[in-house]
């Protein structure tokens, strides 16, 4: 359901609805963009939901929403569904994220972790078995470990399992799983035995309540030892393997309405500033340029197609 605007008028005269849903990681950027866009075009109603990248793609590929936030690229199975529903789209990267592993600030035993440690904790085989810190490293205390992580609908989950466990979507199931990263922050920040992971922005925002865990990928070619996520380490690629790009996908039908075109353009214009403001790492300036051009030709093509 997308309202048709009367496109001939100036920006401020735009109206209509834009429905966005999907990644909780991308949510802060989109939320910020939507909010700033209100001053630009007050009559355009932008709703932003959070149901994880997977959930978002489900709605997107059925044509229920105009734009999906995604913290991973679309999966082949999802492409398939989109085709079935006759939906074409464009993929636009909007920022970089460093997927961040955190513990409670009072946790004084964890100073770094290797990807091996993480795998040991999160792989499916750990379910119901790895329950204490000292099962990971013997020098760690004999205390319960409480895990917090994004739910299966989230791109972060897919990305993390891919990068750490080796297979996307494969992990233990006995942890506090929420599509809402705020819940995870709250869980970790109030539980001395906690370990969790989520998008960098949520760590940035709550630095005083969380302790970041530097991750060692045991590959010295991209930086030696354990590395903590930050603007620099993500940008220069040394925070591996947990750095990743974030995207939005725009439905082609939606891209033929002036409000959506205007909104996406605004998105790409303000993303450098706003993504940094909410805690992510902007793409290089020329990349945004590139995306804008890519989008405008996409939109033009669509407009031409609909006018026939």
């Amino acid at each position, binding site marked *: 359901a997308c309202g048709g605007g009367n496109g001939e008028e100036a920006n401020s005269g735009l109206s209509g609805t834009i429905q966005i849903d999907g990644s909780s990681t991308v949510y802060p950027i989109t*939320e910020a963009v*939507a*909010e700033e866009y209100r001053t630009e075009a007050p009559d355009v109603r932008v*709703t*932003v*939901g959070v149901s994880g990248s997977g959930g978002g793609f489900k709605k997107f590929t059925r044509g229920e929403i105009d734009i999906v936030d995604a913290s991973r690229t679309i999966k082949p199975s999802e492409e398939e569904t989109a085709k079935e529903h006759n939906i074409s789209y464009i993929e636009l990267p909007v920022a970089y994220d460093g997927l961040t592993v955190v513990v409670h600030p009072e946790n004084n035993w964890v100073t770094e972790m290797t990807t091996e440690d993480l795998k040991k904790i999160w792989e499916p085989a750990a379910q119901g078995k790895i329950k204490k810190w000292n099962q990971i490293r013997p020098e760690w205390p004999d205390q319960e470990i409480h895990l917090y992580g994004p739910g299966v609908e989230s791109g972060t989950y897919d990305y993390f399992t891919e990068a750490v466990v080796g297979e996307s979507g494969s992990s233990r199931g006995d942890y506090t799983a929420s599509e809402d990263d*705020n819940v995870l922050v709250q869980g970790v920040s109030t539980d001395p035995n906690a370990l969790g992971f989520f998008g960098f922005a949520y760590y940035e*925002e709550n630095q005083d309540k969380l302790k970041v865990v530097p991750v060692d990928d045991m590959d010295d070619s991209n930086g030696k030892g354990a590395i903590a996520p930050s603007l620099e380490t993500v940008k220069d690629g040394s925070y591996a393997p947990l750095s990743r790009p974030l995207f939005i996908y725009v439905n082609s039908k939606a891209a033929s309405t002036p409000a959506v075109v205007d909104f996406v353009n605004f998105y790409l214009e303000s993303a450098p500033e706003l993504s940094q403001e909410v805690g992510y790492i902007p793409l290089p300036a020329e990349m945004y340029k590139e995306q804008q051009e890519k989008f405008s030709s996409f939109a033009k093509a669509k407009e031409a197609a609909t006018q026939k």
Partner: protein
Amino acid sequence: MTNSDINRLKDKAFQVFGIFCTFIGLVVLAIFLIDIVAEGITRINWDFLTSLPSRRASRAGILTAWAGTLWILVLTTLIAFPLGVGAGIYLEEYGRKNRLANFLEINIANLAGVPSIIYGLLGLEIFGRQMRLGGSLLAGALTLSLLILPIIIVTTREAVKAVPRSIRDGSYALGASKWQTIWHQVLPASFGGILTGIILALSRAVGEAAPLIVIGALAYVPFTPSSPLDEFTVLPIQIFNWTSRPQEEFLTNAAAAIIVLLVITFLLNGIAVYLRNKQQKKIRW
């Protein structure tokens, strides 16, 4: 110590414990209200009431939330009032004492005990999916209407029952039909009681979040709804959303929104109690 001394001691001890328990409830209530007011009151100002949601706590407001709550209140009243009052009147005035009436009674008592989230599932499937209303105001209002229907029915019955037979007899004897009697005599005389029940039921509906979450009410709706088919959010959901954010400032916002919600709830309850007392004083059959 003799037995009777021990008994007296136990008696006194229990008295102290009783006072303690009675006041612990009240003290917790007080702590609770004070805590929330202390945390939230400074945040309440005109901007807070009239601003759209925002990623910055200090700019975020509850305009959409209370507008949604108001919409829900109105729509729910429009749906639940005729249904609940109609059912109450039917059961009290028309329903013969037969199997069906008995069954209806048990059924309503049961409905009153069904958890609100189950109503959410009902609303999700029937209103949201099958009637394709999605997470709209109308779907929410329909769901909440069913939820509060039992309360309205029960209070309507009680109010109608309290109208003395002699009034009905007087009306029938003048040639009034059953419905005329109900319309001209029973309903006006029981209106206060019925109203009390509806307001109590609405105060329940105002505080509900779970069924609305299940049918898919959104947290971030940056506009006030303009038709029953619009998406919406309500105060309890806004509070839930802010409560689950870790940042202090959002908790302050949550506290402030709670103050507003409590004011609405207490106001509704206050009106109900006032009406009930007035009604009790007025009637001297």
